[in-house]
């Protein structure tokens, strides 16, 4: 029996897991942005002219919610300046000229056998190795796991990979099953829980069988087969499917005793602890109609997107859009010169073929958005209030609960820009809340002066 949640959609998956992992040759220059995580951005710790080794720290920040960034090649630092960031804007980055020697940095040693059993040592290593949520959220893993200790009694590992195109998790399961299970065990030990539940969609049955043949129970892991449905990999959906618990509105999974960690993150934890290797590369699924085929490319962090496309066969048609991550929740990059970062599970180069937006759409009230919304919201009414600037009702219809999975927009036959509207509305609410808070603080300061 497979586990799942209510609602959701079945997009055209277009997966190509049979395309084995290809290794992208490191570029002549890598660009390491200082912000590759949620939280305080790093400050560069190297300067122009420095020689750095592969895996050496190039940026760090002592703030609790942060993670250091490392050089993904060895070579000379040629620039420390703001560069285009894949998620938009320009952000401080360290640019390293590759000497193609890949001279490894020896700063991080593999953990000893005792350390591998010590939650603190594992947590420290997660931070040192710059492990962040590699499913795309990029939340510093050490902070998430540490924050859950005592509150969390069930660790949920996300192996749904419900986004179309993406194969990185699937290939990690197939190629490094034992390492992956050991990585999950480490996260489990660090979280101080008895058991980890590994939710995997059954379209990866080969991976489920393979992992089961390595006796996951000896690592304290149970594999939970899940129905193939988007957004099965959403945190709240994953917790619901695996444990039956429902995260309360506005709360985090830790509120119901669960922490969700992605597959690739667990593998990164394995590499950090057993091999002493920081996060400097990952599998990126490169696809889209502009390329015409799919590559699952082991890519160094900091590889420019344009170079990545060239390495994966080049364009057969001019691209119109670069999507980072999967097509359902991925966001658009604005520059070919922006580099890949730790959280990039995919880079999709789309043309007009994928663009189905129309001018002047009309809602036909078919109610499909209501049927598919995994959060039980009513997108068509929320959209109506959005167009009327009726924020009071938007809040009443729980717009803040929307986690922008895109299911409503995906299924909408009238092509209404639903998710777009809710994302905009949420940003406005957040801006308003910040403004109110600032006004209150100013008021309090004034009173204090009196």
């Amino acid at each position: 029996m497979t586990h799942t949640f209510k609602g959701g959609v079945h997009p055209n998956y277009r997966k190509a897991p049979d395309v084995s992992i290809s290794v992208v040759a490191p570029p002549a220059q890598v660009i390491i942005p200082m912000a590759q995580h949620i939280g305080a951005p790093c400050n560069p710790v190297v300067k122009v002219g420095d020689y750095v080794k592969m895996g050496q720290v190039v940026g760090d920040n002592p703030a609790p919610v942060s993670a250091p960034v490392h050089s993904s090649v060895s070579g000379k630092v040629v620039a420390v300046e703001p560069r285009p960031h894949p998620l938009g804007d320009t952000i401080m980055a360290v640019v390293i000229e590759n000497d193609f020697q890949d001279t490894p940095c020896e700063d991080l040693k593999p953990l000893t056998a005792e350390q591998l059993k010590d939650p603190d040592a594992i947590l420290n290593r997660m931070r040192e190795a710059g492990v962040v949520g590699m499913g795309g959220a990029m939340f510093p893993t050490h902070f998430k796991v540490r924050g859950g200790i005592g509150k969390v009694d069930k660790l949920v590992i996300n192996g749904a990979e419900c986004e179309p195109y993406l194969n990185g998790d699937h290939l990690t399961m197939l190629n490094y099953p034992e390492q992956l299970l050991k990585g999950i065990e480490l996260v489990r030990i660090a979280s101080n829980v008895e058991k980890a539940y590994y939710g995997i969609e059954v379209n990866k049955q080969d991976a489920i069988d393979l992992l089961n043949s390595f006796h996951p129970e000896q690592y304290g892991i149970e594999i939970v087969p899940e129905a193939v449905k988007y957004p099965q990999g959403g945190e709240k959906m994953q917790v619901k499917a695996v444990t039956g618990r429902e995260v309360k509105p506005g709360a985090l999974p830790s509120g119901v005793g669960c922490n969700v960690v992605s597959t690739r993150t667990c593998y990164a934890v394995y590499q950090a602890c057993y091999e002493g290797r920081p996060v400097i590369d990952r599998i990126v699924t490169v696809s889209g109609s502009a390329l015409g085929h799919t590559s699952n490319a082991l890519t160094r962090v900091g590889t420019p997107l344009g170079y990545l496309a060239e390495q994966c066969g080049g364009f057969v048609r001019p691209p119109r859009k670069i999507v980072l991550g999967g097509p359902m929740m991925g966001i658009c990059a604005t520059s070919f010169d922006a580099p890949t970062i730790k959280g990039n599970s995919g880079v999709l180069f789309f043309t007009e073929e994928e663009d189905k937006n129309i001018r002047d759409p009309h809602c036909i009230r078919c109610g499909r958005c209501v049927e598919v919304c995994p959060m039980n919201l009513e997108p068509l009414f929320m959209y109506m209030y959005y167009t009327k600037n009726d924020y009071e009702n938007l809040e009443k219809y729980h717009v803040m609960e929307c986690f922008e999975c895109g299911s409503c927009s995906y299924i909408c036959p009238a092509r209404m820009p639903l998710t777009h509207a809710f994302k905009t509305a949420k940003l406005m609410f957040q801006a308003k809340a910040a403004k109110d808070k600032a006004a209150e603080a100013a008021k309090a300061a004034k009173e204090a002066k009196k």
Partner: protein
Amino acid sequence: MSEQKERIILDVAYQPQVRTDRDTRRLMLDVIIALMPSIIVAVLQFGLNAVILCVSGVVSAVFWEWGYRKLFKKSTDIGDLSAVVTGLLLALTLPALAPWWIPVIGTLFAIVIVKQLYGGIGRNFLNPALAARAFLLASYATLMSACPVPNALSGTVDGVSMATPLASLYGVGSMPAMFSMGRLFMGYIPGCMGEISALATLIGAGYLLYRNVISWRIPASFIGTVALVTLIFGGKGFGHGEWMLYNLLSGSLLFGAFFMATDYATSPVTMKGQLLFGAGCGLLTVLIRYFGGFPEGTTYAILIMNLCTWAIDKAFRRHPFGVTKGDLMLKKAQAVIAKEEKR
């Protein structure tokens, strides 16, 4: 390569970056396909006149839609095929003896007054085809109630028009022998073009359900309610089961339940709301049939429930993921306590 890159202007958009292939046009096309069995039966039973009425309905509906949008300088969207569906639905609710201009007037009312004046597709609060049918019934009562003899019965009956099974059921109180259960099911009976054949309607409905164009909720609760009520209360001179079957197969109940009550714009979007909507349609249909002076139970039942759609959607708001019944009760209890404390 880099020069080429310079020239490319990249699009940016919020997620999702992909969408389903099934757009409004495709859904409407599916409805048109689902109506084909009923149209074929109508043509077989009533001949050329059925073709004329369907063509007249479609052409006039598309013309009114196009003309209105053009006249008021709005984006023309006849490509979504919704006007075609309205024209066909209206034509199928007419008796085959109606002259060709009846659908033209009907679609004028349906498209311009019911649909476009309220903002076009998705904004109307009454089912356009049904509202137009009600309008035509009031305006051309004799033309609208003269149902011709179907080809299957020619020879058995004298004259051009005859009473429908539903009229016999409630007016006379007995069912003539020629209206056997089999004939009712196949559609060898007099009546409006689309409603006569239960078989054709069910084939179309099966297609709509299979293609997930409509959900089962409204038709199931609609037909279920009619079946339940007629089974319980029965009718004079009939066995309860027989009475129920006659009620289901005669009149436009099945056609209305699958093709009219499921109209997106005029039915609720929440699941519970849809069940209530269907049950309301069913109950009103039976009430009108039992106590009304008019055999048009289904039409008016659906139109009345259309008016309740907005209220039903408000009443059956969904609670977001993670909110349990316990949470809701707690909230209610807190509100009561707060009220008491105020006192």
